[in-house]
């Protein structure tokens, strides 16, 4: 029995090491690429100072010369991420509460939920062109507002399902007694249910934020200069002399930091959010 345990332990530790190296390697590579001279990028070298001379030129160039652009990119990504998450949460929480507390008759709860969920299955490619044409008419091209609307749309299914589960788990007695006391449903919702379901709201919010933060297709097509977020800036590192990987690295690192930090703070709830509550994390 002990031998078996030792073997499994060894395999386990090997698996852990391999998995950790595997997951962190691209980040590590991005870090050293960002401090390599352009010539060194194509040459094999792992350790700064030992195998290659690091340079701060790339970071300096990005923060100084392209600083305006980068700042704007980060700002846009942040605004789009936060606002679309908020909008999605607002609409989603309302719907989630409705689905949790009421029984709808004309269209069954189940069908409504499935219909909302199916929005997630819609390939963005299928609607990108109409969106472009419609937004063009409305003057929403190259505007942060336009991208917020789009990303909110993609986030609503998450918000609805996560909050629905969260609300369903709340005991109904508190709310019922409040109703009896004369509160309106909306007051019950906003003053009692919402605060109690706060963890789930946060989880759903983070998920929506992350997906909006990484969204590329629509951002690429809809933004020109004012509303350019980080993902498009990363793609924009290609110029007449090819892709400038050192800038890709710097931008990738800058772009990965905010969602990662957010994720770290609420990682307990992420699992729940990701599976629409099919599993309790």
């Amino acid at each position, binding site marked *: 029995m002990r031998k078996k345990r030792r073997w499994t332990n060894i395999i386990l530790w090997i698996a852990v090491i391999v998995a950790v190296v595997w997951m962190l390697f691209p980040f590590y590579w991005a870090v050293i690429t960002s401090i390599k001279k352009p010539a060194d990028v194509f040459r094999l070298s792992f350790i700064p100072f030992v195998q290659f001379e690091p340079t701060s030129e790339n970071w300096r160039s990005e923060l100084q010369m392209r600083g305006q652009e980068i700042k704007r990119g980060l700002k846009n990504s942040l605004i789009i991420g936060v606002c679309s998450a908020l909008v999605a949460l607002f609409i989603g929480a309302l719907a989630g509460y409705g689905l949790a507390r009421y029984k709808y008759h004309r269209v069954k709860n189940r069908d409504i939920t499935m219909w909302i969920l199916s929005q997630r299955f819609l390939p963005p490619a*299928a609607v990108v062109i109409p969106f472009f*044409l419609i937004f063009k008419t409305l003057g929403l091209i190259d505007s942060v507002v336009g991208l917020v609307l789009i990303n909110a749309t993609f986030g609503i299914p998450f918000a609805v399902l996560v909050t629905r589960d969260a609300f369903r788990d709340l005991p109904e007695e508190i709310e019922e007694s409040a109703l009896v006391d004369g509160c309106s449903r909306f007051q019950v919702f906003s003053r009692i249910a919402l605060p109690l379901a706060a963890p789930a709201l946060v989880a759903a919010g983070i998920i929506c934020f992350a997906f909006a933060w990484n969204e590329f297709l629509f951002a690429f097509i809809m933004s020109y200069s004012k509303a350019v977020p980080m993902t498009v800036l990363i793609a924009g590192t290609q110029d007449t002399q090819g892709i400038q990987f050192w800038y890709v690295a710097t931008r990738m690192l800058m772009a990965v930091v905010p969602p990662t930090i957010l994720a770290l703070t609420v990682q307990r709830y992420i699992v729940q959010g990701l599976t629409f509550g*099919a599993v309790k994390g």
Partner: protein
Amino acid sequence: MNRKKRVPLKEQGKHFFIFPAIIWLLVFTIFPLLYTLYLSFHGSRFLRVTKFVGLENYIYVLSDYRFWNAFRVTITFVVLSVLLTVGLGLLLALLFNRQMKGVQFFRTICTTPLFTAPVALGYMFMIILYEEGGPVNNFLHALGANAIPWLSHPRWALVSVLIADVWQWTPFAFLVLLAALQAAPRDLYEAASLDSASGWEIFRHITLPLISPTLGTVIILRTVEAFKVFDLPFALTNGGPGLATRTLTFNVYTSGLRDQNLGVATATAVILLLMVLAVSQIFFRRYGSNYD
């Protein structure tokens, strides 16, 4: 809420809650979808609709070898990606389903790939898989193996895209399945091991049925997301070499926004949508009951 009629307390505000979502989705998804459908039946020139052409666009698309190539690439990618991410995720989840210190740390690391922009990932993997002087091929050399033409050979190019995709999504599968495993009641396992059932039998008869709903969810989610993949092949190989990594979404992008042929692009998009809907029907049939 004004009391217009005698609405029971419990039913107040029923529609108020659900309406915003329904209206939003109608405006922002159904309406554009209908527009897509409309466009697919018309010709266009430079983003302007010209005339009604009936099924011409669909015939063009379905008789274009580029469509079938992209179809093949997409299906191959979806199948392999789902198998790999879910398979590896399951394996890891089973492996880590025990008391271990550092699980928290490990789970934290697992969330970082999810928040990396696929575009950035694609470019990063370009230099990681750089055949002449990249770390991966040098590692292979050190082991005595041959260098692999990651980005210059059509088959390997698709593998490279898969690698990046697996890197990004296996943690997701892992986290979810781990949570499912840990939610399972412990006594079942203890009873089984007391009965000296083999590990494989435990897995087949107890574990698998228990996590089956979650497994199904993960599979369907990964499948749907894999159908939509665009950023990764765009950044990593730009659809090449030749057409080897061009997915259907990639085709929609090139015909719609580069070639500006809206009719063909939307026809391709509609076909893609039908494919995804067919797949999702399977999901709903099995798991729809969860959503009552």
